[in-house]
């Protein structure tokens, strides 16, 4: 139901763009006004979200991360999983962002039986999520970077090279991009994972399905433009360059699928700052990834401690309440005689 609702919402967006740019011919609005507004909302919303997160204190270090922490010199420390210095933490963060190590460590719980047929709970490696995620994210990144050919003039050599390398399979004309297959394949597999695995489906919400359908919509409309509708790419470059150089030329003769694609991308941009897609910036603020485990080296002060409340040692506590404690028969470190 939630999945169908999300799908219908994305289809509604497609209909809005088809009717607005196709039937109603509102080309300037769909080519310039909406993407421009969406980009501004995306940038401002993203920065505001990060700033609002930065205002929240972290009460304590979170040292319970995988791997051996820094200990006695003859115990080997797992520096990338349990770093104790800044540079080590940087490596952990870089590996997390670039290779998704915490997904690679994903496990699933299974029930097996031992030789005597007694039930045994086991934890086995489950790499599928990592595989689908890495396909999807790198596919998406390549697609976004490759699109810079429409945003930059002259096209820089690295972008040209990327476009060539991405189409190196030389299947069909225009050639099929590897990144398109990774993006659409990865997103589809992530969606199927939510739909087919009962436990995942139980916890999936509209805000899990909607971004997947929206991204699939973006990717499929893009692929449709390239492989099926065969849109006029030079006309599109003129429109996109108009967006970038702030010269708004009214485009002519561009297929409606372009406006649908741009509208879906605009929706995605607007959606990012208000949704779980903010993990794009939020991953850098994960306390279990960005805090070195140095609690035994540096004293960490909880930022929300009340400075008016002074430390109160046990010795001072006993000094304050010694008479009452003696009366109640509680054990004392120092009797009143010893104290005196």
């Amino acid at each position, binding site marked *: 139901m939630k999945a169908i609702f999300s799908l219908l919402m994305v289809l509604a967006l497609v209909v809005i763009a088809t009717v607005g740019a196709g039937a109603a011919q509102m080309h300037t609005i769909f080519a310039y006004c909406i993407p421009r507004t969406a980009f501004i909302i995306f940038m401002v919303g993203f920065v505001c979200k*990060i700033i609002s997160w*930065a205002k929240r204190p*972290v009460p304590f270090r979170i040292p319970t991360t995988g791997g051996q922490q820094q200990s006695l010199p003859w115990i080997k420390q797992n520096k990338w999983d349990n770093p104790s210095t800044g540079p080590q933490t940087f490596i952990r963060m870089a590996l997390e962002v670039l290779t998704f190590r915490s997904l690679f460590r994903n496990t699933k719980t299974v029930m097996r039986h031992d030789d005597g047929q007694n039930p045994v709970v086991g934890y086995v490696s489950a790499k599928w999520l990592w595989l689908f995620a890495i396909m999807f994210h790198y596919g998406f990144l390549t697609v976004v970077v490759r699109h810079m050919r429409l945003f930059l*003039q*002259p096209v820089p050599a690295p*972008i040209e090279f990327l476009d060539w390398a991405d189409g190196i399979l030389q299947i069909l004309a*225009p050639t099929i991009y590897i990144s398109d297959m990774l993006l659409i394949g990865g997103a589809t597999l992530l969606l199927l994972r939510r739909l087919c695995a009962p436990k995942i489906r139980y916890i999936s919400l509209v805000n899990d399905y909607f971004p997947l359908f929206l991204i699939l919509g973006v990717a499929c409309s893009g692929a449709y433009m390239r492989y099926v509708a065969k849109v*006029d*790419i030079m006309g599109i470059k003129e429109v996109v360059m108009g967006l970038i*150089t702030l010269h708004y030329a009214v485009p002519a003769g561009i297929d409606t699928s372009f406006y649908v694609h741009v509208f879906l991308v605009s929706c995605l941009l607007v959606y990012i700052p208000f949704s779980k897609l903010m993990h794009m910036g939020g991953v850098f603020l994960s306390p279990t990834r960005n805090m070195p485990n140095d609690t035994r080296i540096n004293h960490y002060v909880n930022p929300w401690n009340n400075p008016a409340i002074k430390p109160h040692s046990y010795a001072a506590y006993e000094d304050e309440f010694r008479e009452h404690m003696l009366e109640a028969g509680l054990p004392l470190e120092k009797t009143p005689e010893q104290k005196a």
Partner: protein
Amino acid sequence: MKLYNGGKIITGLVIFLCVFLAPFAYNAGKAAYSQPKVQLPKDEKECIESKEYMRTNHMKLLNQWRDWALRDGKRVYVNSKGKSFEISLQNTCMKCHPNKAEFCDKCHNDAAVSPYCWDCHYQPDGGLKK
């Protein structure tokens, strides 16, 4: 209002802004982009199909031509108006568009497209150069 780890977070945000605003900076101050003007043949007014069709579908057509000519041995193309053409990049297309740099490359460079036509074909005007 205090920011925790403000220095690092602001640095990150500056990097974010730089990356996403880079296309604006790259094109800043440049004149409005207009589509490249390709060199059109002087004595011929019509291509084998309509201009709109050729603009968007020439790659598909060239791909079909290659398959028909080299794999099926079919050497005659009949266009939508019933006119016949020899299926040949060298003898038909490049008879009117002999200069790759002034015709093909104009748009292909701007769109960063690198078609593999020239892995096999030579261009009449450009000699043996790819």
